[in-house]
């Protein structure tokens, strides 16, 4: 009988404890983020939740997903939420961080009951849809108990389904591994993203562009209130950090072929650089903010479709790269996509077309 290695056992115990703590931490952070009365704290807790999720991805041997989650899921989503909260506060309904309301905007609106102003940012009263606040206590309580019990039933049903799945399951690893020599890259996730399931990625980039178009079509923002004096820490940080971020993005793009990385992670880092620049008050020069910007934004999708179509003559299917050139084609798509994704994410943070903002 083989001697059980006490060191290995200790490692397994440590790993299990870590995973259990991580799971508890994730659930607790999610609950606190959703239940916190203060919206600002809720968003900060959500960003922390995103970073713990990145840790969970690393534990699950998914480093590509960890990079994407940390950059996009925690970082950029958090930035978007913060910007949205700041704009909510600017339009007067919600007290800002100093407790002051923006009087100019409050005057313009029709009268709002003061109780609602407090409710926007404070107590998360569970308000069941369609039930006015004047209904008696028992009705609301009964509905809440019903909702909770239904959710518990759903949770147990889903949990049972998950637990009844086989312990060992042969996924598509062998199928992917069998075709890696024809994919043009060494990283299986990049091969799946850009080659085997390239159609999904093409549509995903179109979705990102579509979200930007939707945001732009919703009209321009109200003029930003007069900004305070430039913050030295932010300026120095941005001056030092933006070139480093561009370098890191270029590295992630290049490394995506053989190591964790890729176009989306690199594009997210570029997007973060763009967000930092926007925070300092920098805006695109007017002559670049119209056609050149739109060309760069669309370039990702256009390049992908172009490469997909150029593989057609020669009797191939759409998106079926010729194996000798597959690596170069993937790198070309990823390079254009990185720039396009980065600028799209920064533009989503800005929230309105730069030209519209300039016109005000």
């Amino acid at each position, binding site marked *: 009988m083989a001697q059980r290695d006490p060191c290995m056992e200790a490692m397994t115990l440590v790993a299990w404890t870590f995973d259990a703590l991580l799971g508890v931490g994730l*659930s607790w952070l999610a609950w606190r983020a959703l239940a916190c009365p203060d919206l600002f704290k809720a968003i900060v807790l959500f960003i922390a939740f995103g970073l713990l999720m990145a840790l969970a991805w690393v534990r699950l041997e998914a480093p590509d997903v960890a990079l*994407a989650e940390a950059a996009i899921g925690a970082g950029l989503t958090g930035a978007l*939420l913060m910007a949205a909260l700041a704009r909510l506060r600017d339009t007067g309904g919600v007290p800002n961080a100093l407790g002051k309301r923006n009087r100019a905007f409050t005057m313009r609106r029709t009268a709002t009951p003061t109780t609602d102003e407090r409710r926007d940012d404070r107590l998360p009263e569970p308000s*069941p849809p369609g039930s006015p606040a004047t209904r008696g206590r028992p009705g609301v309580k009964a509905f809440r108990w019903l909702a909770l019990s239904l959710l518990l039933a759903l949770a147990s049903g889903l*949990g049972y389904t*998950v637990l009844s799945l086989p312990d060992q399951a042969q996924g598509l690893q062998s199928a992917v591994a069998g075709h890696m020599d024809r994919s043009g890259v060494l990283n299986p996730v990049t091969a799946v993203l850009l080659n085997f399931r390239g159609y999904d990625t093409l549509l995903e980039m179109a979705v990102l562009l579509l979200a930007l178009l939707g945001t732009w079509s919703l009209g321009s923002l109200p003029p930003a209130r007069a900004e305070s004096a430039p913050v030295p820490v932010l300026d120095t940080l941005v001056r030092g950090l933006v070139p480093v971020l561009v370098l890191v993005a270029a590295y992630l793009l290049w490394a995506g072929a053989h190591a964790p990385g890729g176009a989306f992670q690199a594009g997210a880092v570029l997007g973060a650089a763009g967000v930092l620049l926007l925070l300092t008050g920098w805006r695109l020069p007017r002559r670049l903010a119209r056609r050149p910007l739109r060309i760069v934004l669309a370039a990702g999708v256009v390049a992908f479709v172009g490469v997909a179509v150029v593989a057609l003559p020669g009797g191939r299917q759409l998106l079926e790269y010729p194996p000798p050139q597959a690596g170069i084609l993937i790198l070309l798509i990823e390079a254009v996509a990185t720039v396009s994704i980065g600028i799209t994410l920064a533009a989503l943070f800005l929230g309105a077309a730069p030209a519209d903002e300039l016109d005000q």
Partner: protein
Amino acid sequence: MSIEFLYALVGVGLVCLGLHALIAYAHLLRKILAINVMGSGVFLVLVALARRGGDVPPDPVPHAMVITGIVVAVSATALALSLMRKVNAATGRAELPDQDRD
């Protein structure tokens, strides 16, 4: 029960937490947070179950799908936040108007 199922159960818990918050809170920003948490829960289930192969590396196809999902989630969040901004500009409150009160 191996480690993958622990994370998958945490994912199920996150989906239900997010669903509860989506139903319970009226503020649109909270609803958007809830949907993001639900999305993270679904991704956890997908990636956790992809690691059931034993000694072989995990299945890369769910990883690619989750990366796609993260990008789509941020796009949807950005659009939803713009819509919330318009609702707030139109009605003065970051909540959808309650039908019974009109």
